[in-house]
Structure formats: structure tokens, C-alpha cells
């Protein structure tokens, strides 16, 4: 299972590196969304708002949606799904691999957007650095949930409007946990409970994915 996971993750990341979609499309999108958030707050509030953590996670949610679509489209192109099926790869491994690749991509984007939040929304640098570990865990949970929902919504072939409807209710608790942990980090609150909560969410989505991804892929 682990070997399959690494194989699939390697494949996805290589495709991503060669196509440069992450660099030229996703990262600019994330930064632009952050700028738009600043504009939405208005010049009076953009610099000293307590909405920074929430906006950061909102932007990351939108980025996640883009990346899920991307991750599923790769799978749909020129018979990849069929070849994966005929190779007899363990579906749990495929799930873990795709989730891992998505997580790595989200981590890269997350660090850039976090830096953007510090620059544009004047979120405190030290607090943001303290929040980074919980950000990484929550982004990983988003990746796991997103991979599952990507397959659910039809893996790139389904209507693109379906994915947000399906995934937002599942993302909402992660958004809440993320926003609160980031805010706590900014105000010097205790972080360990948020660590535990986000870890539990991550484990839960990984577990469900390992169990049910095969059901979605079998045909």
C-alpha cells in the first residue's frame, strides 16, 4: 500500500513539475485571491483586520478546489484510470498517493499564501510562523478529504459545479479549526488542542479514504 502510494504520488508530482500548472496558474490565483480579499475589506481595514486567518483559509479552500480538479483531470487523461485498474494497483495506495501529492502541492501554495497574508493583510509574522505546523496538518486533511470528494464528484468528467457543493460542508469544520488555531496562535493561546483536532480530522479522512476509495474506482 505504502509503495503504491509513493509511486502514485511521485507520478502526480512529476506531471505537476513538468506542466508547471502549480507555478503559473495556482500560485498566482492564490495571491490574486488574497489581494481581492484585501480590497474587499477596504483600505481602512485591510491592514489591521482580525479577519486575516479566516481569509487565509478561505483562499486556501478555493485553491484546494482548483487543485482537486487538476488532480482528477490528470487521472482521467488518455486512459490513465484504465491502466491503473489493469495494473491491479491497490486502490487504498492510489488514494494515499494522490492525497500525498495534493498535500505537497497545497503545502507549497500554503506557505506562499501565508507569506502573502503577512505582507498584504499585516498578519503578525511570529504568530503566523507558530501557526505553520497546524496549517500544514489542516492542509493535509483538506488534501485527503479533497481527493475523496474529487473521486466522488466524477473525477474530472463530472460537472465542475458539483465538487464545491459536495465538498464545502466537509471542508467547513476544517475551516473552523484552521481559523481558530491561527487566531489563537496570533493571540498567544495554547495550540496543542488544535493540533490534536486537526490530526483527528486528518486521520478520519485518511481512514475513510483507505476504506472507500476502492468502491469509487471499481467499475
Amino acid at each position, binding site marked *: 500500500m505504502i509503495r503504491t502510494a509513493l509511486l502514485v504520488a511521485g507520478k502526480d508530482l512529476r506531471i505537476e513539475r513538468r506542466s508547471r500548472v502549480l507555478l503559473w496558474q495556482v500560485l498566482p490565483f492564490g495571491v490574486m485571491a488574497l489581494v481581492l480579499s484585501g480590497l474587499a475589506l477596504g483600505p481602512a481595514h485591510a491592514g489591521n483586520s482580525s479577519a486575516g486567518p479566516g481569509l487565509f483559509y478561505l483562499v486556501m479552500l478555493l485553491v484546494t478546489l482548483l487543485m482537486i480538479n487538476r488532480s482528477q483531470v490528470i487521472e482521467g487523461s488518455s486512459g490513465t484510470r484504465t491502466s491503473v485498474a489493469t495494473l491491479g494497483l491497490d486502490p487504498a495506495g492510489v488514494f494515499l498517493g494522490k492525497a500525498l501529492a495534493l498535500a505537497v502541492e497545497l503545502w507549497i501554495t500554503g506557505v506562499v499564501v501565508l507569506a502573502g497574508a503577512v505582507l498584504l493583510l499585516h498578519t503578525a509574522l511570529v504568530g503566523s510562523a507558530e501557526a505553520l505546523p497546524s496549517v500544514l496538518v489542516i492542509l493535509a486533511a483538506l488534501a485527503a478529504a479533497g481527493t475523496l470528494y474529487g473521486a466522488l464528484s466524477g473525477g474530472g468528467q463530472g460537472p465542475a459545479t458539483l465538487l464545491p457543493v459536495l465538498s464545502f460542508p466537509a471542508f467547513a469544520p476544517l475551516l*473552523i479549526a484552521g481559523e*481558530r488555531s491561527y487566531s489563537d496562535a496570533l493571540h498567544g493561546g495554547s495550540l496543542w488542542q488544535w493540533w490534536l*483536532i486537526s490530526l483527528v480530522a486528518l486521520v478520519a479522512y485518511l481512514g475513510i479514504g483507505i*476504506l472507500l476509495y476502492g468502491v469509487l474506482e471499481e467499475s
Partner: protein
Amino acid sequence: MPDTEDTFDLTPVAAPPTKRRGRWRTIGVLVVLALAVLALLSQGLLHSLNYFETIDQAMSSRAKLGTDTFRLEGVVRPHTIDRTSRGASFWMTGGDKKVFVDAHGSPPQLFQADIPVVVEGHFTSETSDTFIATQILVKHTASYIAAHPKRVKAPNGTVR
């Protein structure tokens, strides 16, 4: 091409033993999921998902709260309600502590003595026990007791 049939072995083979491993994996994952949920529950976590703080909680973290805006819950003390032109002021108790609430805006219809309320606002200073509220919410309990038939009607028509 008569030879190809010899080179390919077309006899059916037994399915790989995925079933067994699948079952153990299922059990393993379910156990991990159960443990994760238990970990979450046993810690009494997610304090900040609370809608309000009780008076005891607020008093114990008085220094941290300062003059921040938050929601505070307590029971309205009888005979302390004073309807002002801006709203109402009253004493609110919780545990053995009490807070003086000065609320702006009209209180809800059910607002009265001896019921739990949630007020949103802030303390006037780091040490004072005066709380300026912008909103009063009545938190009704889960007990339903028939109004006594001989009780008088309140001026606004509700039976108390």
C-alpha cells in the same frame, strides 16, 4: 497463427487473496477511527466552539479577557431589573459570583427575573464587574412546566 495459443496460458487462475488483507485493514482502520474520536472526546476539547462563557469561566480568565467583546451567560437576579431608556440593567449571577449588566437595546419578549440569559458585550475595565451589553439573548432551559391557572397575567398578556 496457430502457435499463439500455446504461448498464452489462458487457464483461469485463482483470484489474488485481497479479501483477507482487506478485512484486516478494515478492522484496523475502524479501530484507529474509534480511537481518534475517543481522543477528541476524552479531552473535552473545542472550548472555543462554545457560544458563550459562564460567569465562573469569565471570572477565572478575567485578565486574558480584558475588555474584549464576548458572550457571557448567567441567571438574572430577581428584583434587580431596572428598565432604562436605553434598555435594561440588572445583576446576573452564576456560581457564587455576580456581574452587573448594563444592556443597550430592547430586551427580548421573554426577558424576566430568574431565567438564564446570554449577553454580548464587554467589561468596562480589567477589574470591574460591570458589563456593557449590546444584546440580550434569553437562553431558555429544557424544562417545561405548566403555568399555574390561578397566576395573574402580566401586563403584556403572557402568563407568568
